[in-house]
């Protein structure tokens, strides 16, 4: 009996979405996230060649070698992934841009580019693999580490953290979520929803560093996150190609977030009321979580008010990288007209 290979909606096996072997430490949260990226892209049925993998420098930024081996990618320089993605997006708006960054890459050296990519509403998924330490340089604190958190070696951190979700929401980002690398179901749903969003989608994923900060005093360790985090809601992603009448209706309350490509993110009410449309409520919830030394996870904020960076340009329908010479260079006749105007 031959083995049945499961295919996605565009008839591709999951193996079309995998990458090379990881060289990260065994147990690294980042590898779990790579697995989720593979799963989400496969289940959403995105043609691998249509995806562009973008990254900066750091442990997280190495991971594009470990997923989507059939997609082009660019492992750029430290903290500069957003600008390279912007340039690429301007000349080829039809690709799905999947950016992978870390807390060092995005919250310190790259914070300016992070902010401005959000301000422009660059059409991309921006994943922050957030462990609170610089792994490649052997465990220095990063700017997202919580006050009072302590890595395996050295003194506790005394400085307040930069909360990338809070920052993104303040800047008007249309899709902001927080998850945990170990929460596979939640993260996969949020990842798929981010891929279905038109515009900047930021997912901050707490991703424990098993080598330098997985001790219980570290707020981003497996042990801490498992006991000290709270889900804002249950999340379930419903594909646009999936008939709605085949989807089970939850027993409790729920809310459907309509996404750009027709898919739906179903938010199921758990213990608390949470309004994902209200940015001030999100900021307040994040602030309270910080005071309580807890993590809140789920879809923090969603809005679709802003045009994307490429829509804002009023470009021709054809991606600019595919324009033919007659579109790229004024004609000789037009040139002579212009010269005549100058010479008059």
């Amino acid at each position, binding site marked *: 009996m031959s083995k049945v290979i499961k295919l996605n909606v565009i008839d591709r096996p999951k193996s079309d979405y995998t990458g090379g072997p990881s060289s990260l430490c065994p147990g690294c949260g980042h590898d779990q996230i790579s697995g989720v990226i593979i799963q989400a892209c496969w289940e959403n049925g995105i043609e691998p060649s249509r995806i562009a*993998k973008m990254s900066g420098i750091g442990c997280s930024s190495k991971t594009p070698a470990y997923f989507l081996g059939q997609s082009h990618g660019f492992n750029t320089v430290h903290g500069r992934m957003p*600008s390279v993605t912007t*340039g690429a997006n301007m000349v080829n708006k039809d690709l799905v841009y999947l950016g992978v960054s870390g807390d060092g890459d995005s919250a310190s050296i790259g914070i300016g580019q992070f902010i401005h990519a959000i301000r422009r509403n660059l059409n991309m998924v921006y994943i922050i693999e957030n462990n609170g330490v610089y792994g490649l340089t052997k465990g220095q604190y990063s700017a997202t580490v919580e006050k009072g958190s302590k890595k395996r070696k050295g003194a506790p951190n005394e400085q307040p953290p930069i909360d990338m979700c809070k920052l993104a929401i303040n800047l008007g980002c249309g899709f902001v979520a927080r998850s945990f690398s170990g929460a596979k179901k939640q993260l996969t749903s949020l990842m798929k929803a981010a891929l279905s969003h038109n515009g900047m989608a930021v997912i901050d994923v707490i991703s424990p560093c098993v080598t330098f900060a997985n001790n219980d005093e570290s707020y981003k360790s497996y042990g801490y996150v498992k006991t000290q985090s709270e889900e804002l809601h249950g999340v379930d992603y419903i594909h646009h190609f999936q008939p709605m009448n085949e989807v089970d209706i939850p027993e409790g309350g729920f809310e459907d977030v309509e996404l750009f490509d027709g898919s739906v993110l179903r938010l199921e009410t758990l213990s608390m009321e949470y309004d994902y449309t209200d940015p001030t409520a999100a900021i307040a919830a994040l602030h309270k979580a910080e005071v309580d030394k807890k993590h809140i996870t789920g879809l923090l904020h969603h809005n679709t008010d802003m045009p994307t960076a490429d829509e804002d340009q009023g470009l021709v329908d054809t991606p600019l990288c595919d324009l033919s010479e007659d579109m790229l260079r004024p004609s000789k006749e037009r040139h002579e007209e212009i010269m005549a105007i100058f010479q008059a």
Partner: protein
Amino acid sequence: MEVNLRAIEEGRKMAEENITWDCPHAVEARHKKEGTFLIDGNEAAALGSIYGGVTMLSWYPITPSSSLAEGIIHWLPQLRDTEDGESTCAVVQAEDELAAAGMVLGAGWAGGRGMTCTSGPGISLMSEFIGLAYFAEVPGVIWDVNRVGPSTGLPTRTQQGDLNLLREASHGDTEHIVLIPGTVEECFEFGWRAFDYAERFQTLVFGFSDLDLGMNNWVCSGFDYPDEPIDRGKVLRSAEQMAAIENYGRYRDVDGDGVPYRTLPGSGLDPILYRGTGHDEDGIYSEDPEVYQKLMMRLKKKLFNARKHLPGPVIREETEQDVGIIYMGSMENSIQEIDDIIEETGLKVSQCRVRAVPLHPDIEAFIERHNRVIVLEINRDGQLYGVLRKELPINLVPKISSVAYSDGMPPRARIYSDLILEVLKEGAE
């Protein structure tokens, strides 16, 4: 407006009545020459870039280059929009020069024609990305409209002080193609050619102008329409093209000219992860000593081969080959006056204007033919002289002498001719 006009009138009246000054200069109106017009180098380069098919302009305002970007923004709707008013070139005002350079790389990586324009301080900031473009072989165009350095320097004055910076920007062994226009016509021509060179050689190409050429108006009789079709370089766009190449690899020197073939994101052909880390001929991460050394030597070969394809020098040569002057860029506007002053002493002067680095082979031949060669430039250290010393065969080096002077002002012929005569006198003694 009315108040201003009255002030002019009042001023003139006061000068007429009160000033008795024996001025040696007089101002006369000149008749406009039929078919000519005034234009500055930045607008000319802007028009050239539009003819070169720029599809992504990123920029961060800086004197004296802002008007180049604004020139592109001004002319795009008239020259490049479709009939329906849709744009064929994205324009992004970046948050800083680092981001502007990153966008150029992103555009080039994705198969577009990306450019930015800046001045020396911007090039310093962009240097990290410039090295990435060199190493990962990503095409792009950056214009440097030189102002006076170092540091913030004299931001509204002119200099040719960035040549060294452009030639070798970024850490490690790097080198870059630099196009050096000397006239507004060349600003236009190099504006479009820069993109062809960038895609042909899969590297960054600099346009190197300066404040004097870029922001002052110069007489122009029109721009020649590009005499060559757009060159997109070695891009594989179909499976058939890919199949025709035996043992394809992104960084494999298939043709022996140092320039590999590339594929574009979205094509599904040979998807690789571009990287600034060491890589083998297939683009896979490598720290193998042989792989690294071979890659660096191929990059060197690629740029060496490029030199004969770049704009050659403009040579005005005497039959008596006493003195040759090698110069570049906006010095073009003063060279004849300098030449005339020196020729008053009885010496015959030939001129050779460098228009690109790496240096064209004709420059070496020019030096060989002349007894003495002066390298003339608007900076303190003789940067073009340094490039020549590095790139010329060692036996020719003693023939060249440096005359470098910079005070922020456009060149005044007498200062440079006096310095040249001094150097020639020293050499004769």
